[in-house]
C-alpha cells in the first residue's frame, strides 16, 4: 500500500485510486461535484483542487485536481494550504454567479450537495453584481422535475443518464456559459432509470416530482432501511414518511446489490402505500356493519378457527418470510400452499434447488457488473429486473475497457479517457430473448426465438463447452453454428455470467442456463449464474419447496368443507376467474389478509388489513439468495394495519390454552425458520436482534434536525404523545439515539456532519464505492460447494413447432404496468401499456390479422378482445400479451391456446 503525505501526515492508501477517492476514504472532507464514485473522474468542475508538492522542501506546491491524479508512494499534498483552500472557495463563488439564491424554496434544500460543499469551502459573500443567466425549464414527465437555473454544469446528469444508463433523450446542449442539460424538447424522460437523476444531480435541477406532490425536507422524514418490493432483485431502499404518508424512496447503498442506483419502478412505485384503496379496518362480510373492531374480529375468528374447522393456508411471494412462516405455523406445514401458480412454482422451486445444490455460484448485481462476458438466455431483464439490465450494461462497458486497457494502460477511475479509448467497443454480450429487448443495442449477438429453441441452443452451447454435458439430438447445422459462436466467446472469458429466469415460463431454459454455467466452470474460469424470479420474495417461498396453488385447489376438490387463509395474494392474477371462483366457493371460510382491495379480497368472508413493507418489519430473499431485512418506517394511522405475521400469530393463539400461547418475537420467528428449514440457515443473522444497542442507544429513524415533533399533532391534541416504542427492532421512532454509523443493515438514512445529501454515503463505506462498513447488508443463503460432482440436466426439449390453429401464450413484461403494486402510482399506471396481442407476421397473415385488428383470447371462460400488434421479432406460433394488466390477469402463461374455434376479427 502506498503511503502519501497529507498536510505532512503519512497515510496508507489503496493503490490504483485517485487522490480524491483516497482522501474521502480516509474520512477527510474534500469537496467535489463532477466526480461520482460510480461514474468516475472527468475533472470538469475543478472543485476538488488540492496542492501537490514536489518534495518536502517544496513550499509553493502546484494546484492539482485530486480526482485526476493517482496516488503514488511518497506523494505530498495539502488540503489546508491557503492556495487550494482559496481556490476551492472561489470555485463555489463562480458557481454561485449564476446559481439562484433560492434554497428556502428549493426541493434540494437540506439534502443538497451544493449547499454542503458551499459551507465546506467557507464561501459566504458573493461579489458578482450582474444579472444572472436564466433558462427555461422543461416538462420531463411525472417523475422528474426540472429547474435549470440551479444547474452548476457538473455534467453528472448526462454522464449518468447517457453514458452509464444508455439513455438517449437527455443531453447537454449549446456551449460556454449557456450549456443546457435536458431533452431536445419537452417530454417524458424515456429511461426507466431517470429517477436517479434526482440523486446524481448535486443541486435542485432534477428533483423527485412525486415527492413534490407531498413535499417534505429530508430532515423532516422518518426513515427506515427497507427493501424494494417491485421485483426479485431486492434493491435496498430508504423509505421516508411524514404525516402518516410514505413520501419518498431513495437509494440505500448496497455495494453488492444495487450500488448507488434504483429503477423508476422501485423509486416511484410506492404510492400504493398511500392509496385510498388500502384496507384500513377488518371486515366481516354479510353482517350489519361489516367493518368491525378488534374484539369483534377476534371473537369471530376464534369461532371459525375452533377445532373442527380445517384450514389450509395460501402464502404469497410478495409477503415476507416471517408472514409466510407464520401462516405455515397457523395452518400446519401440510396445509400450507405457497400461492404460486403451478408452472411458476415448478420453475421457482427448480431455480431454488439448482442454486441450493451449490454447483454454480449465484451472481449478485455487483458480480454481474464484473463479468467479462454475459449471456442472457430468454429472460427480458430490462422489464423483469431493470437494475439487472443496468448491471449488464456496466459489464459490457467495463469488460470492453479492461480489454482496451491491456494495450493502453490507464487508471480505472479515469472515466473520460477510458471512454475515449474504448469508443464503441463492447464486451461480449449475447442477448437471446423472445422478442427483443432494449438491451439488444449493446449486444454483440442477439437472437429472438421461442423458449424451447432458446433452451436447445443453450444445451448445445453447454455441450460444445463440455462434451460431458448432454448433446442436442437432431440439432440443425444452423443451431450448432450459433452455439459454437457463443460457446467460443464464452470460453474466452474468465468470469462469464449466464442470466436466465422464470419469465419465459420454460423449464428447459432454466436447466440449459445451469448447464452452460456448469460447463464453463473449470480451471481458472469461474462462471456464475443469475436467475430472475417473479416477486420480491419468490425465492423465499421456493426454498421451502412447498406445494403451489394448484395443489390447494386439487385438495379442495377432494376434501369438502375446508377453510382457507389467503396471505397477501390476489389469486385472480394467477388463475382464471372461474377457477378461483370455484375454489373460493368451495371453501367454508375465506380469511384474507391483504393491503389493498383486489378481486380476491372482495370475496373474503373475513378481511384483515395487513401492513405494506413500509409499515412492517420482515425479511425477504432475493433472486440471488440474499436474505435482507426491511424495517417499519412508520406506524399507520389505522391501528388495524399490522404485519401479517402479527395477525397470524394472534389468530394462532386465540384458541391456545392459557400459558400455551406461542406468539413469538420477530427475532424468534427467524430462529424458528432456521430450525425448521436448514436451507434458511443464517437468516437470523441478517440484521442485529431487537435488543441491539450502540453505547446503550437505539438507532433513530429521524434525523437530529427533525422539526415539529411537538407541533406535528397539535391540531389533534397539544400534548405531545410518547413516541411509538419499537419492541421489534433496534430502531426508534425518535431523533434521539446513536448518531454514528450503525451496522450496515440498520442504516435508516445517510447523514454525516457537513454532509446532508445522499453523498454522505461515502462516510459509511470502507472505501468510497466499496462495501459499507462492516460489510454490505444481507446474508447469502447459497454458497458454492466445490465437492459437488458436475451433474447436468438432461431435459432437452424438441424443436419448437407451431401447432396448427394454436398459439403459445407467453407474457410480455413491462417495467411499468406488470407490477401488481407499483401500478397504484398514477404515473406508472399512465405508462402501463394498453392491452395488445403481439404475434409474428406470418401468423398474423395466416389468421388474416393486421396491426390493430382484434384477436380474441380466451382467459378462463372469458373471451377478451386484444388489438393485434404484428411483431417482427417474434417466432411463429407464439402470442405475447402484456403481463400484469387486469385484462390478462389469470392467463395461463405457457399454455397453448386454440384459435380454431375462436372467433376473431
Amino acid at each position, binding site marked *: 500500500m502506498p503511503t502519501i503525505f497529507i498536510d505532512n501526515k503519512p497515510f496508507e492508501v489503496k493503490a490504483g485510486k485517485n487522490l480524491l477517492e483516497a482522501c474521502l476514504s480516509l474520512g477527510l472532507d474534500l469537496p467535489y461535484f463532477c466526480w461520482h464514485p460510480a461514474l468516475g473522474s472527468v475533472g470538469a468542475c475543478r472543485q476538488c483542487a488540492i496542492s501537490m508538492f514536489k518534495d518536502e522542501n517544496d513550499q509553493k506546491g502546484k494546484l492539482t485536481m485530486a480526482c485526476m491524479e493517482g496516488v503514488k508512494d511518497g506523494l505530498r499534498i495539502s488540503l489546508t494550504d491557503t492556495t487550494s483552500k482559496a481556490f476551492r472557495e472561489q470555485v463555489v463563488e463562480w458557481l454561485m454567479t449564476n446559481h439562484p439564491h433560492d434554497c428556502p424554496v428549493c426541493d434540494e434544500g437540506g439534502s443538497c450537495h451544493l449547499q454542503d460543499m458551499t459551507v465546506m469551502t467557507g464561501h459566504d459573500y458573493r461579489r458578482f453584481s450582474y444579472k444572472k443567466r436564466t433558462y427555461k425549464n422543461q416538462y420531463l414527465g411525472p417523475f422528474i422535475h426540472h429547474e435549470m437555473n440551479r444547474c452548476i454544469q457538473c455534467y453528472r446528469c448526462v454522464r449518468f443518464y447517457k453514458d452509464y444508463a444508455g439513455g*438517449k*433523450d437527455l*443531453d*447537454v*446542449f*449549446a*456551449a460556454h456559459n449557456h450549456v443546457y442539460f435536458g*431533452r*431536445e424538447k419537452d417530454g417524458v424522460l424515456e429511461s426507466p432509470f431517470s429517477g436517479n437523476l434526482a440523486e446524481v444531480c448535486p443541486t435542485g435541477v432534477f428533483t423527485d416530482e412525486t415527492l413534490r406532490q407531498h413535499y417534505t425536507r429530508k430532515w423532516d422524514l422518518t426513515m427506515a432501511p427497507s427493501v424494494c418490493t417491485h421485483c426479485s432483485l431486492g434493491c435496498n431502499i430508504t423509505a421516508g414518511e411524514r404525516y402518516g404518508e410514505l413520501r419518498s424512496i431513495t437509494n440505500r447503498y448496497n455495494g453488492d446489490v444495487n450500488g448507488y442506483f434504483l429503477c423508476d419502478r422501485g423509486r416511484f412505485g410506492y404510492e400504493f402505500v398511500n392509496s385510498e384503496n388500502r384496507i384500513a379496518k377488518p371486515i366481516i362480510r354479510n353482517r350489519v356493519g361489516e367493518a368491525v373492531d378488534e374484539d369483534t374480529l377476534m371473537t369471530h375468528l376464534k369461532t371459525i378457527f375452533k377445532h373442527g374447522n380445517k384450514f389450509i393456508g395460501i402464502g404469497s411471494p410478495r409477503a415476507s418470510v416471517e408472514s409466510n412462516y407464520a401462516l405455515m405455523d397457523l395452518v400446519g406445514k401440510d396445509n400450507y400452499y405457497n400461492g404460486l401458480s403451478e408452472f411458476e412454482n415448478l420453475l421457482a422451486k427448480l431455480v431454488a434447488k439448482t442454486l441450493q445444490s451449490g454447483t454454480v455460484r449465484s451472481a449478485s448485481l455487483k458480480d454481474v457488473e464484473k463479468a467479462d462476458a454475459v449471456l442472457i438466455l430468454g429472460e427480458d431483464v430490462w422489464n423483469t429486473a431493470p437494475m439487472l439490465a443496468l448491471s449488464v450494461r456496466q459489464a459490457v462497458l467495463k469488460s470492453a475497457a479492461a480489454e482496451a486497457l491491456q494495450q493502453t494502460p490507464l487508471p480505472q477511475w479515469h472515466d473520460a479517457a477510458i471512454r475515449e479509448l474504448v469508443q*464503441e467497443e463492447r464486451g461480449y454480450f449475447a442477448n437471446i430473448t423472445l422478442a427483443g429487448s432494449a438491451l439488444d443495442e449493446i449486444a454483440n449477438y442477439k437472437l429472438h426465438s421461442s423458449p424451447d429453441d432458446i433452451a436447445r441452443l443453450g444445451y448445445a452451447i453447454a455441450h460444445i463447452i463440455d462434451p460431458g454435458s448432454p448433446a442436442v439430438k437432431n440439432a440443425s447445422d444452423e443451431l450448432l453454428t450459433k452455439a459454437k459462436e457463443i460457446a467460443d466467446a464464452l470460453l474466452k472469458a474468465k468470469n462469464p455470467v449466464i442470466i436466465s429466469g422464470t419469465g419465459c415460463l420454460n423449464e428447459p431454459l432454466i436447466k440449459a442456463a445451469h448447464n452452460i454455467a456448469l460447463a464453463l466452470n473449470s480451471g481458472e474460469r469461474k462462471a456464475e449464474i443469475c436467475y430472475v424470479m417473479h416477486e420480491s420474495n419468490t425465492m423465499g417461498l421456493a426454498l421451502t419447496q412447498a406445494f403451489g396453488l394448484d395443489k390447494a385447489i386439487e385438495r379442495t376438490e377432494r376434501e369438502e368443507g375446508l377453510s382457507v387463509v389467503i396471505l397477501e395474494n390476489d389469486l385472480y392474477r394467477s388463475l382464471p376467474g372461474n377457477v378461483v371462483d370455484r375454489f373460493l366457493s368451495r371453501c367454508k371460510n375465506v380469511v384474507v389478509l391483504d393491503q389493498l382491495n383486489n378481486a380476491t379480497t372482495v370475496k373474503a368472508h373475513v378481511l384483515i388489513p395487513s401492513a405494506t413493507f413500509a409499515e412492517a418489519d420482515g425479511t425477504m430473499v432475493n433472486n440471488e439468495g440474499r436474505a435482507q431485512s426491511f424495517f417499519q418506517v412508520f406506524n399507520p394511522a389505522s391501528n388495524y394495519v399490522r404485519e401479517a405475521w402479527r395477525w397470524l400469530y394472534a389468530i394462532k393463539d386465540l384458541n391456545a390454552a392459557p400459558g400455551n400461547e406461542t406468539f413469538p418475537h420477530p427475532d424468534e420467528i427467524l430462529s424458528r425458520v432456521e430450525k425448521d428449514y436448514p436451507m434458511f440457515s443464517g437468516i437470523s443473522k441478517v440484521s442485529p436482534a431487537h435488543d441491539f444497542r450502540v453505547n446503550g442507544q437505539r438507532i433513530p429513524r429521524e434525523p437530529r434536525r427533525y422539526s415539529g415533533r411537538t407541533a406535528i399533532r397539535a391540531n389533534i391534541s397539544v400534548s405531545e404523545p410518547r413516541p411509538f416504542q419499537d419492541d421489534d427492532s433496534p430502531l426508534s421512532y425518535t431523533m434521539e439515539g446513536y448518531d454514528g454509523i450503525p451496522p450496515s443493515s440498520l442504516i435508516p438514512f445517510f447523514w454525516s456532519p457537513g454532509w446532508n445529501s445522499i453523498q454522505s454515503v461515502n462516510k459509511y463505506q470502507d472505501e468510497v464505492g466499496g462495501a459499507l462498513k462492516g460489510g454490505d447488508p444481507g446474508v447469502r443463503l447459497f454458497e458454492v460447494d466445490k465437492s459437488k460432482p458436475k451433474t447436468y440436466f438432461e431435459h432437452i426439449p424438441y424443436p419448437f413447432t407451431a401447432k396448427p390453429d394454436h398459439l403459445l401464450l407467453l407474457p410480455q413484461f413491462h417495467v411499468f404496468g406488470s407490477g401488481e403494486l407499483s401500478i397504484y402510482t398514477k404515473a406508472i399506471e399512465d405508462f402501463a401499456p394498453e392491452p395488445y396481442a403481439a404475434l409474428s407476421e406470418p401468423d398474423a397473415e395466416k389468421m388474416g390479422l393486421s396491426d390493430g385488428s382484434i384477436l380474441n383470447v380466451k382467459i378462463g371462460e372469458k373471451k377478451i378482445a386484444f388489438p393485434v400488434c404484428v411483431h417482427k421479432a417474434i417466432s411463429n406460433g407464439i402470442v405475447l400479451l402484456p403481463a400484469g394488466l387486469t385484462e390478462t390477469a389469470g392467463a395461463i402463461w405457457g399454455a397453448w391456446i386454440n384459435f380454431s374455434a375462436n372467433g376473431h376479427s
Partner: protein
Amino acid sequence: MLTPDEKHEIDHEISILPHRKAAVIEALKIVQQHRGWVNDESVGAVADYLDMSPAEVDSVATFYNLIFRKPVGRHIILLCDSISCYVMGYQKLYAAIQDQLQIKFGGTTSDKKFTLLPNPCLGCCDRAPALMIDEDLYTDVTPDKLAEIFSKYS
C-alpha cells in the same frame, strides 16, 4: 427524411470513419448545405440515419456556432469582431450595417436576404477590418464600400 443526394454524401463520410456516429458533424454540414439551416426535422433525419437519438445530434449541433438551428437568410454575413478588427474599427462597420440593413447581430433582413453574425477572427488581421459573405472574403472594408458589396447579392 434525407434526400438521396444527402444520403449519398453522408454515406461517403461514413465510409471513411470507424463508426457511423462519427459522421454526425459532416452530416449536419451536408444537410445545412442543402437546406440552408438545420430544423428539428433535419436533426431527426440525421439521427435516424446515423443510429443516434435526436438529443445526441442536437447536442453536437448546438455546440457549434455555424450549424444554424434557426432559419437564416439567403446569405450569411460574418463580420469579424475580434481584436485586430476591433483596433481597426469594425464597430463602424457594424454601425453602418445596422443602418443599411436594419439588422443587428443574429438578425435576418425582412427580405430574408442577409443574416448578420459576429465572427471571431477571419484570419486576415493584416487587412482588417474584414467580413465574409458566404464564400467571399472582403478585407480592408470601410463603411462606404458596404453598399457596393451588398449589391452583389440577390
